[in-house]
């Protein structure tokens, strides 16, 4: 059963305990100064963004069909059965195509290091595999970040919206975006105010490139036959012309 995180921004009190728990789990430094940074970076894999008294988390959406996993030339990203999208730094060549391609601009780079890695939230893949909730969900004191089965969390999100239609925007962010994500968001104000794009395609982005890539084997076979054929015809013409030329010469000599 695929796991997911449901974040309900109406329950969030901006205590930033999720940020702290995330930093601890990923062995990253954390203090008030880092806490005040409202954007993701190589040293901050989740961030609580404040707009007045409204809050919103940013973290890797752990897509159902991840763009990063599709574009990576060495397969460093994997969608695990449990939901998390993991990154294997030992494969990574540092082409940064994942950063270009991610529709949520999640992967960040260790620009200051000589041998940099890509950094992103991996939904605590090791904890999830061991049957535990993510560090952020465990640390959340209000239940704003909740960990569970994706299907059950979707049902719960729908129920919360139905129960309090005035409190919520009628949109579960991550239900359909790029084919669905393992992080689901609820909000009382438009997602765009927190920098979440709402014009994102509903289809998984990998289909956009695979549609073209999947034709390559056919193209190679077709191209080989076509070019070989053209070569044969153009050179055959020459041989024929030469042979006919010779024939004419031979006949001329006979006469």
């Amino acid at each position, binding site marked *: 059963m695929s796991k997911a995180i449901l974040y309900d921004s109406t329950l969030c009190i901006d205590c930033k305990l999720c940020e702290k728990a995330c930093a601890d789990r990923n062995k990253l430094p954390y203090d008030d100064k880092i806490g005040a940074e409202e954007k993701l970076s190589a040293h901050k894999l989740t961030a609580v963004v404040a707009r007045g008294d409204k809050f919103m988390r940013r973290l890797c959406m752990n897509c159902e069909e991840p763009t990063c996993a599709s574009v990576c030339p060495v397969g460093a990203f994997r969608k695990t059965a449990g939901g998390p999208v993991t990154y294997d730094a030992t494969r990574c060549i540092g*082409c940064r195509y994942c950063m270009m391609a991610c529709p949520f601009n999640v992967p960040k780079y260790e620009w200051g290091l000589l041998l940099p890695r890509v950094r992103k939230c991996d939904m605590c893949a090791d904890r999830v595999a061991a049957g535990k909730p993510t560090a952020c969900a465990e640390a959340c004191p209000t239940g704003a970040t909740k960990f569970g089965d994706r299907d059950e969390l979707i049902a719960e999100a729908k129920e919360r919206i139905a129960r309090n239609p005035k409190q919520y925007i009628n949109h579960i962010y991550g239900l359909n975006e790029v084919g669905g994500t393992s992080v689901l968001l609820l909000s009382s104000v438009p997602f765009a105010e927190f920098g979440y794009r709402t014009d994102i395609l509903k289809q998984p982005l990998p289909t956009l490139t695979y549609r073209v890539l999947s034709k390559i084997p056919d193209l190679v076979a077709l191209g080989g036959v076509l070019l070989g054929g053209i*070569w044969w015809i153009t050179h055959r013409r020459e041989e024929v012309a030469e042979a006919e030329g010779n024939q004419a010469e031979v006949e001329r000599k006979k006469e």
Partner: protein
Amino acid sequence: MKMQLPRLTFWKALFVLILLAGLYATIVRFTRGLGASTNLSDNFPWGLWIGFDVLCGVMLAAGGFILTATVHIFNLKKFEPIIRPTVLTAFLGYVLVVVALLFDLGRPYRIWHPLVMWNPHSVMFEVAWCVALYTTVLALEFAPVVFERLRFERPLRILRTISIPLVIAGVILSTLHQSSLGSLYLIVPEKLHPLWYSPLLPVFFFISAVAVGLAMVIFESWMSSKAFGKQLELPLLQSLGRVLLVVLGVYAVLRFEDLLHRGALPLLLHSSYETDLFLLEVVIGLLLPIALLANPRIRATAGGLYLCAVLVVLGFVTNRLNVSITGMESAAGVHYIPRWTEIAVTASIIGAGFAIFALAVKYLPIFPEAIGRAAHPEELRGEMGAA
């Protein structure tokens, strides 16, 4: 050669200056990392090295597959005299693209990883394989020139037997990765500006590579006339010009139809940073050269053809930079200007390309007159194109 000495000295001085700057930039890049040596950031992860060195580098080297296909597949033997300089340019071009990649990759020592760690869903994976294979093909296509000089008879015979399959493989590999460089951007429908994002990106990249390949053959003929006193005969340049006009026409119609059907044309009514650079690209790379080439009087002169070739090259370099940089800026929310170290590395790579080409011309039988001097003519007759 003596008459050109003063100019060569100036170019040499400039070349040394660029190379010194490039050397310093290289030290910064490999001791302090990408953050210190580039203006790249989390918001803008691909800059000049990908946009120019890789995207434009591969495009500018397209002459290689165009000409080998013309001579060996379509059997247009009259173009044989320029096949060697063109294949050499292509080979150098691809080697330099790989060098540029070593600068850009965060972990350059793992550049071989895509060859063993497969991900067939990745366009980048496909490009990596194609570039690796095609660089090998180009090396084999150029090898006869070196073997001839060294008089290696057996390898020469072997290469001659496999020359046609090699050419066919080269054309297919080129078709694949020239278009795939466009496919790289299919994955960013929300990020790339609608003036450039199109499902037809791979088609556009391929057709423009053909146009630039033709333009580069004309341009290289001009360069070699300046530097080595060797150039193509006018009728050859003229027929290249006619084909170039047709390719540009096809591209222009397709590009316009695409903008029309995607409803992106109205974007041109509003003046913006993107619109201006789009117009620059279209005027330099399409409208001007098409107008000039359509005029029979201009098309008939070497000067007119050289001018058109330069316009096409500049126009499509602008196109590649627009796709990779201009078109990505607004979604990224940043304005990217390369750091001087990035420019120094790029300039050094271009400079190194020119220098190696000049050396190769000096020591290897590249141009027809040199071929005559280097080896037995009867042996070479079948050989010249076997590259």
